[in-house]
């Protein structure tokens, strides 16, 4: 396989939280431009995988490797990963009281630009850019003046994540249940925003429980994660199948077999 065509390569990834093994040998390759979805029951390790990619410290990698654009991700600080273009839209976005949303976004954007040796955006340029993006996402400008996620509704928080995504323009967007908490109109808008952002070389890894997001953002691959392993990988129709039959009928023997086959 042409190494250069891999954006993200996860090999035999094992990880623990408090000595308990949560991920048990993940294999996943994402090429530029691809959209991957990860589905799986609660507690199977989806968010853990997302957090490890972003560099969360309480998840300890015990085996395996993660390469992003042929660089070892595991030795990078979270901010470096972010600056290199890995973006995580959080399942539970964090509130930062008293910190102006615009100020936060600008600081983030300029931290990234600085790392790329680009000139910092001044307040005027920043605001201009932010207003365009807000419009695309059908969001009110007033959100800029509120404190980061403080007192936001569930849906507003998710939208704010997407605002950050389109502003920061990463290479790989990891969306952890961005669809949950969004009403159907908001879901359409958010999906449209992501589709508009996603160019040929941008990739997406999205964690979801529902088909409905996949109706708007069409995945190239769907992976099923159960108990820390990817037990099945398929095309966009796999989700429909899962929605009908649930995860239950992927019994454990079948799982192991399938897993070994893949390897």
């Amino acid at each position: 396989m042409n190494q250069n065509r891999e954006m993200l390569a996860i090999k035999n990834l094992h990880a623990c939280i408090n000595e308990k093994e949560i991920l048990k040998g993940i294999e996943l390759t994402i090429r530029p431009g691809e959209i991957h979805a990860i589905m799986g029951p609660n507690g199977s390790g989806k968010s853990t995988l997302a957090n490890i990619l972003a560099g969360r410290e309480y998840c300890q990698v015990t085996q395996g490797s993660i390469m992003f654009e042929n660089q070892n991700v595991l030795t990078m600080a979270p901010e470096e990963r972010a600056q290199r273009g890995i973006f995580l839209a959080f399942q539970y976005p964090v509130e930062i009281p008293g910190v102006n949303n615009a100020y936060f976004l600008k600081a983030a954007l300029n931290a990234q630009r600085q790392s790329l040796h680009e000139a910092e955006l001044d307040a005027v340029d920043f605001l201009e850019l932010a207003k365009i993006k807000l419009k695309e996402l059908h969001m009110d400008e007033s959100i800029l003046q509120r404190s980061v996620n403080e007192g936001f509704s569930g849906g507003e928080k998710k939208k704010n994540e997407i605002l950050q995504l389109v502003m920061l323009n990463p290479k790989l967007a990891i969306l952890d249940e961005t669809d949950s908490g969004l009403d159907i109109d908001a879901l359409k808008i958010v999906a449209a925003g992501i589709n508009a952002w996603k160019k040929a070389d941008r990739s997406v890894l999205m964690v979801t429980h529902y088909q409905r997001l996949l109706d708007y953002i069409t995945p190239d691959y769907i992976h099923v994660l159960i108990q820390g392993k990817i037990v099945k990988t398929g095309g966009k129709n796999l989700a429909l199948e899962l929605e009908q039959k649930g995860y239950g009928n992927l019994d454990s023997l079948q799982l192991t077999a399938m897993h070994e086959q893949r390897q």
Partner: protein
Amino acid sequence: MTSSLKKNSANQYTDEKYRYGFTTSIESEQAPPGLNEEIIHWISEKKNEPTFMLNWRLKCYHAWKKMREPRWSSVHYPPIQYEEIIYYSSAQKQAPKSLDEVDPEILKTFEKLGIPLHEREALAGVAIDAVFDSVSVGTTFKEKLSKLGIIFCSFSEAVQQHPELIQTYLGSVVPYNDNFFAALNSAVFSDGSFCYIPKHTRCPMELSTYFRINAAKTGQFERTLIIADEGSYVSYLEGCTAPMRDENQLHAAVVELVALDRAEIRYSTVQNWYPGDAQGKGGVYNFVTKRGACRGYRSKISWTQVETGSAITWKYPSCILQGDESVGEFYSVAVANHFQQADTGTKMIHLGKNTTSTIISKGISAGQGQNTYRGLVRIQKKAAQARNYTQCDSLLMGSHCSAQTLPSIEVKNPTAKAEHEASTSKISEDQIFYCRQRGLSTEDAVNLIVNGFCKEVFKKLPMEFAVEAQKLLAVTLEGSVG
């Protein structure tokens, strides 16, 4: 403590020796350690004060003699040896001749704060020469003020030039026997600032001790008196925005504010005295009495403080709301890092009708720091419809620090209302990680979160001061997390 103090305190004084020490000290313009009536006489004489001042000082001294150091606060420190302190020294300390002679630690902090070079020299106590054009700055600024009838001068100068004002107002807000430290200050204070804003005058600039201190270094017992006459307005900045590494340990200052009908005083402080080192050695004990009297109808006094320095902070800027519809405010950020102890808060005493007060206190504890909010809201019988709103928030960084909130509310009028809200939070890993995931370093993340926490207070500060306060906070808390 100064070297001469060390030398002297090694000796045991008999009365005779004491007198002997006294005479030799006069030659060097420095009183021997300890406090007695003679020294009070001597201070007053040195300052060429009118008799009313001497008598007042003596009265304060006798009151102080009978008082005991307060022990009700949460701060702990070894006993202060009052008999070892030198209460008057007119000889300037040996000022460093250039920045090369200044402690490099201090210079590093200046750099981080972005203080211009000439200001760094002044702040470090470098003897002012032609490089720092303070003389002309001082003069233009004084002329402008005097045209408006505004008096802004050193306390000593005010005693000479405006004795009638001093006699009327000195000790009228903080009585001479108010508390141990205030009584001590009243007896021995060396200098300070005086300010009078005439009727219906809006002071056109922020008045700052900074300019004044450059002209005459004030001592560890300083005294400030600000009088805002009817319908006037003044914003006063007190600050040492850089660490002055003072050898002396005890600072006991007194600030009195008087606001007459419809007058408004905004008093902002950024305090960054030497906090001691990371092991808790050294540092300033800051025992300060600050109080404002809203005497007039619709008068307003607003205290804003950012307390990042000192090993011990013991400070309760308060408002006495005498005038009907008068307003008192207290906005505070207090930091306790390493082994710092902060016991600070306010008192709002509602006497007049429809008086309102607002208290916003933000305490930050890091390292082994210990932060206490202590507040009193007292609404007296006649204060119909009085209102108070209090909000006390504590932020903990790490697990070895502590914060406590001790509000006391006494409401004696049934139509009055007092509201109190309190919260304690930690800078969470989640918040820091969230910021880092967006590309910010841990340090930037902490600063961002802390500034967010302090925002309600910072926005009350004059612009430049707010910027400095933010930077100062960043420097103070550097390395506290992560």
